[in-house]
């Protein structure tokens, strides 16, 4: 049974067992956060070809260049073959010459010709260029400027020439103008901006407002969750019939996806058919059922109320588990000594629950500060950005505007806030969190 020769010592086995998880965490948590920070130093936009890479020096997108160079040449040949007007032929010939001159200078440098031909072949057979060192090639800054200016000018003059022509020739010329413009966009702009994105956001009121909304949401909802959760835990800390059923029903709001419960509440808050909005109106809490999701105060109330509904039961469960570890004798002897209920709560329950409460607070606060699904689905950050939490704002910049540079700056700001909150908490909790996990 024992295969001695394969056995590792305890230490070796330990490191071998820890390695896979640590590598995974390093690759998909720690490395991405560093990349996020790196991205945030660039004006990096997915929807703008000349900014779609993080470019430190002067670079050209060879794939785009080769592809459009091919098109431009083809169109020029076609125009020269079809054209009868002398001014068109002359102008297009000059452009052909001008481009070829610069193209040849470009190819003569380093290994550009080799790379260009390889990329051209790939592009012609309709494959994407995967190799990044082939796709992005560095070029001389002043040459790039000259080439780029030339292309911009020619594209403009062709556009005006095309407007003077008629019929098929006009279309051909405007096609050529567009292709030259695309060729121009293969020159990457240097887009390193340092802390520019941060500087811009720190002066922007929308960011401060979103941080304010996130903080308000976090503080108010976690406060109510803790107070109500503790009250419920104290009340149900006794033997009663139907414990299992109560526990299960309390777990359901916690267990269903936040996005789904946000949809449920969106229906309940709805101005026309929402039953909660209707009852609130009847009770006089709001003047009009429509106010819940259309006014800023109503919308903030709505997200906090939903979060409290979803998380209070969960908080109560955690605190109840903590309450059940407090020995009965403590309360009994306190009662013998004549301590009243308030004193027992204040002198026994709270101190004994301290670490449970702090740990629960830490995780809840972080969760609340990272809030995304609830707000994104329930209000979309509206009305007029009144409920736009920082995560939601960052998401909009990243994926709606496709602005990965500025959006990364926002997401790094969220990260920093979360880091500050957890450092503060861990100072308070100290080693309680890790206790008991690393003996032996």
């Amino acid at each position, binding site marked *: 049974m024992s295969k001695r020769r394969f056995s*590792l010592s305890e230490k070796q086995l*330990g490191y071998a067992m820890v390695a896979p998880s640590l590598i995974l965490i390093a690759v*998909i948590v720690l490395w991405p956060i560093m990349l996020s920070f790196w991205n945030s130093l660039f004006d990096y936009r997915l929807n703008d070809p000349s900014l779609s890479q993080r470019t430190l020096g002067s670079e050209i997108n060879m794939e785009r260049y080769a592809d459009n160079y091919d098109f431009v040449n083809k169109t020029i040949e076609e125009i020269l073959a079809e054209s009868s007007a002398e001014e068109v032929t002359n102008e297009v010939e000059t452009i052909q010459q001008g481009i070829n001159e610069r193209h040849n200078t470009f190819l003569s440098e380093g290994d550009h010709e080799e790379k260009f031909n390889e990329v051209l072949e790939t592009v012609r057979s309709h494959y994407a260029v995967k190799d990044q060192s082939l796709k992005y090639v560095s070029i001389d800054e002043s040459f790039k400027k000259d080439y780029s200016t030339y292309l911009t000018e020619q594209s403009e003059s062709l556009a005006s020439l095309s407007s003077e022509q008629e019929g098929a020739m006009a279309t051909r010329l405007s096609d050529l103008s567009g292709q030259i413009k695309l060729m121009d966009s293969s020159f990457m702009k240097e887009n390193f901006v340092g802390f520019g994105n941060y500087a811009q956001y720190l002066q922007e009121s929308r960011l401060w407002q979103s941080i304010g909304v996130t903080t308000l949401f976090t503080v108010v909802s976690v406060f109510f969750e803790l107070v109500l959760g503790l009250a419920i835990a104290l009340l149900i800390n006794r033997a*009663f019939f139907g414990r299992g059923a109560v526990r299960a029903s*309390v777990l359901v709001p916690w267990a*269903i996806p936040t996005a789904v419960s946000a949809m449920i509440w969106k229906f309940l808050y709805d101005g026309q*058919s929402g039953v909660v909005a209707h009852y609130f109106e009847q009770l006089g809490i709001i003047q009009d059922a429509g106010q819940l999701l259309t006014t800023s105060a109503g919308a903030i109330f709505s997200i906090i109320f939903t979060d409290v509904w979803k998380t209070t039961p969960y908080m109560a469960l955690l605190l109840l588990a903590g309450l059940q570890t407090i020995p009965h004798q403590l309360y*009994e002897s306190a009662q013998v000594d004549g301590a009243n209920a308030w004193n027992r709560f204040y002198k026994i329950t709270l101190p004994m629950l301290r670490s449970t409460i702090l740990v629960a607070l830490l995780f809840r606060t972080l969760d609340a500060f*990272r809030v995304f699904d609830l707000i994104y689905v329930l209000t979309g950050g509206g009305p007029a950005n009144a409920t736009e939490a920082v995560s939601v704002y960052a998401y909009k910049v990243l994926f709606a505007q496709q602005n990965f540079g500025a959006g990364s700056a926002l997401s790094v700001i969220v990260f920093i806030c979360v880091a500050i909150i957890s450092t503060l908490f861990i100072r308070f909790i100290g080693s309680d969190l890790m206790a008991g996990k*690393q003996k032996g």
Partner: protein
Amino acid sequence: MQRKAGPWFYLFLIVFVFLVMFPFLWIFLTSIKPLGDIFGSPFAWFGSGISFQSYESALTTRPLLRYMLNSFIVSGATTILAIGCAAFTAYAVTRLPIRFKSVILGVVLASSMFPPIAIISPIYDFVTDFGLRNTYPGLVIPYITISLPLAIWILATFFQNIPYSLEESAKLDGATPFQTFRKIILPLAAPGVFTTAILVFIAAWNEYLFALTINTKDAMKTVPVGISLYQSQYSIPWGDITAATVLVTIPIVIIVLIFQRRIVAGLTSGSVKG
């Protein structure tokens, strides 16, 4: 102090459970109303009859069953992968004589606190570059960020509570450290591993941000994203949404009903010292 439960207590309990469950109750009642009643008399508890129109429409206008299948595959794969890696790590950190234990646990804890928004853009680039958008691995890989730290953290608590004496006697009998892990610790920790698996599964099932950005094709969406996008630009089909919500909530309710004891044990193990 154990007090006795009187009638007032039960009254309170009923009100509390009713408030917690009211949204589900209302969604269920709405989903079986005839369509006309949902908009005609939205505040009546019961409609003019029972109708399954909304369910039919919810299942035919969007591939709801496909969403559920996607969620099931992604969450299942995430759970297996995370538990596999985490069981080793949690064992090594709690039981084996390695160095830097507190550093390792610190890194695990810190990464469980990472806001997903902070890593979404590099992950999106990565998934796009490898052609993994709208695939299952495209979600399973990012889900490691949520599930692995969670699994390590909870499993470490469970492993900690297994008595040392069994391990010692296995060692004396000449078992290698890995044999001890496989033959002694794993069987003993099985209930804890199972509990952790349920919690990881639920966490993966509920994830929204990665699913929203990475799997945008309708056939590859997960349940939370699918449900949140039932609404169209101009009208909100509440009938479809309530029916779809009821359908996707049922599996969760079943899991919670069956495993409630274990779930509570798992949830509290990380935050309460026994």
